[in-house]
Every structure is written in structure tokens, then in C-alpha cells.
């Protein structure tokens, strides 16, 4: 293989020095077809410029920390192959719609608050004692919520959602999908308790079904579906006289 090279442009921003972010260009060897965008950043950090900052850990698409915008699309950089871009250059910027802390690192406190706000834990009227063993649950019952339990909190969906971009008060795709994950779990009885947060004006109603959240989701969670289904279910609770109110 001839010595291939690829140009990576990455956002640089140091709040202690810079007023606003800028792009810096790096020309690096593209030595192996298995290389992903994250490998390119790691190469830069190890061999060219140690001050480039970004988050990553697992390098296998499961920890959810390496989400960035790659050529305009939110991606997990550990699963975005350079071969899909080469010979074009690759522009890596932080996830959209979040405040930039430093270089490619965004502030995710808002997201963490939102996760917590929907009470993502099993709520029961009566806990069963440990000694009674497990709740029985069939694979079909798991199938009800399985898709929505695959979320790795990578926030790509928030970066893709213009509604969140326009107004950060919006509860957003992943948090609502997670709420639905618990609401659909046969062990959970907390739908009603989560309702005020979910059916809040800044909750499900704010979503105008752009659907891009589901397009970018790397784990097939389909938050857009979760949100629309929640709208429908919630509406039915109130529209049907005895609908669905447990």
C-alpha cells in the first residue's frame, strides 16, 4: 500500500485563550483500512499535538463517550471509518447543540439532569422481597422495551435534534426513550409518576417529529418512535374514559 495520507480538521477551543472555536488541520498517515476517525485523533494526540482534547474510552461503540460531528453528521468516532471519507478530508467538530467546554469536548450536565428527571429506575407500589426471587418476565415482555433499553447515552440524537438546538429546555429524545423503556417494563408501575415530566410542555409535546434523532442513533433505539408512541399512549389515557390508567 502506497503511503496514503488523510487530512483531519478538528475544532480547537481553549476558553482560557480563545474567544471562539477555530479549525486546525492535520495531515496524517492513513496506514490501515481499519482505521477509524478516533484512531486518527489518537494519532494526532500521540504524535503531532498532545493538547488536542476529546473524550473516548471503549473503542467498541458501547461506552458512548466518543460522539462528535464528523463532516456534518453526529457519529461515534470509534465506529466511523476513515476509508468511508478518504480521499476527502475529515472535519471533526464537537456535537452540535451543546456548549463547548474545550476542543471537541461538550458540556453534558444538562443531559445528565434530564436523564435523572424522568426517574429512570423501577418504581413499584410494593417492592417484593429479595427472598421471593425474581419477577417473572417472558422474552416477549422484554421485547416490548428491549429496543429502548439499548441507549448508550451518546447524545448523538440531541445533537441531531433541531428542536433541542432551538430550545434546550426540551427534554429530548434519549431521555424520553428511556422513560418509555421503564414504562413498558412489566416490572415497573411508575408510568403515572413519570407522567408530569414526560407530558410537560417541554416534554413530548415539544417534539415535532423531525426524526433525525433516529437516523443518527448508532444503537437503533429509535427515540422518535418512543416519543410519538408516548404521545399517543398519553393522549389515550385521557381521551378514552377508562383507557390505560392503571
Amino acid at each position, binding site marked *: 500500500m502506497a503511503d496514503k495520507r488523510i487530512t483531519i480538521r478538528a475544532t480547537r*477551543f481553549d*476558553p482560557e485563550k480563545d474567544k*471562539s*472555536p477555530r479549525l486546525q488541520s492535520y495531515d496524517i498517515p492513513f496506514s490501515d483500512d481499519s482505521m477509524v476517525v478516533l484512531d486518527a485523533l489518537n494519532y494526532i494526540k500521540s504524535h503531532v499535538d498532545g493538547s488536542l482534547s476529546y473524550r473516548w474510552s471503549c473503542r467498541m461503540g458501547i461506552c458512548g463517550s466518543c460522539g462528535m460531528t464528523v463532516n*456534518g453528521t453526529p457519529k461515534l468516532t470509534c465506529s466511523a471509518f476513515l476509508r468511508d471519507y478518504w480521499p476527502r478530508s475529515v472535519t471533526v467538530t464537537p456535537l*452540535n*447543540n451543546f*456548549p*463547548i*467546554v474545550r476542543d471537541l469536548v461538550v*458540556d453534558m*450536565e444538562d443531559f*445528565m*439532569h434530564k436523564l*435523572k428527571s424522568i426517574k429512570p429506575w423501577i418504581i413499584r407500589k410494593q417492592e417484593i422481597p429479595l427472598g421471593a426471587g425474581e419477577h417473572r418476565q417472558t422474552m*416477549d415482555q422484554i*421485547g416490548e422495551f428491549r429496543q429502548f433499553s439499548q441507549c448508550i447515552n451518546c447524545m448523538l440524537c440531541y445533537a441531531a435534534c*433541531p428542536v433541542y*438546538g*432551538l430550545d434546550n429546555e426540551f427534554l429530548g429524545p434519549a431521555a424520553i426513550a428511556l422513560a418509555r423503556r421503564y414504562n413498558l417494563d412489566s416490572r415497573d408501575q411508575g408510568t403515572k409518576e413519570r407522567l408530569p415530566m414526560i407530558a410537560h410542555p417541554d416534554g413530548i409535546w415539544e417534539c*415535532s*417529529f*423531525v*426524526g*433525525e434523532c433516529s*437516523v443518527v442513533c448508532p444503537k437503533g433505539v*429509535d427515540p*422518535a*418512535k418512543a416519543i*410519538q*408512541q408516548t*404521545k*399517543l399512549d398519553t393522549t389515550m389515557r385521557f381521551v378514552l374514559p377508562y383507557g390505560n390508567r392503571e
Partner: protein
Amino acid sequence: MSAEAETATRTYRPPMGAGWWTRKGHYFWYMVREFTALPLALWLLWLLYEIQRAGRGPSGYYPPNSTAFVIFSAICLPFALYHSFTFLKLAGVILRVKLLDKPLASGVIVATMFGTWLVASVVVGAVLIGFGR
């Protein structure tokens, strides 16, 4: 909650810009979908006007056939079709129908929606044309 909050450092929030929907094909088509509301609303208002016109008695009645109106309808039609297509397709995502305790595949739901659309169009069309003279 976490102790960091108090030591907030300066962050940079990139502006969103009103032209965000031009950045990506998908966003653009979303805006088109939302925009369909406008031509459809105008067309229905026209229909309402047509009905109201009939109330003024037979003397002044003339059938709707200005070229401008045909052009206007022709413009509205793609929007109407796009609305129908997107709305019925997305309905497949939302609806959860269970048949014999098995969730129905969303493909089946979408097919049913489009089937209903077809039947409704045929019935309405038949009435509109069938009573015509």
C-alpha cells in the same frame, strides 16, 4: 447535584441560525412536510368558499374552472400527496397494534394505512363524480 456546577468555566455555545434546515436534506424535507399545511389550508378555504357560494342561489352560480384555480390546485396536489405519504408512513412507526398477542409489524400497519387511503379516495371520488352531471 454534582460539585462541578459551581465551578462552571466559560463555554462556547455555537449559534443555531435560522437557516439550519438548509444544512441537510433530511431537515429540508422535514420543513417541506411542515409547510404542506399552508397550501392545504388555502385549498380547504377555497372549498369552503365554494360551498358558501352555492348558498347565494342558482342565478350567479358558475362552476369553478378558472385556469388560475387549476394551477393553484396543481400546486397544492404534490403538497397534499407529500403530506399523505409522510403522515401515513410515520403512522406505522407510532401505532402499536396487537393481533392475537403478537405485535403487528410496522410494515403491515403502513400497508393498511395506505390501503385505507386508497379506499377512502375511491369512495369519495365515486361520490363526487357519481353525482355529477
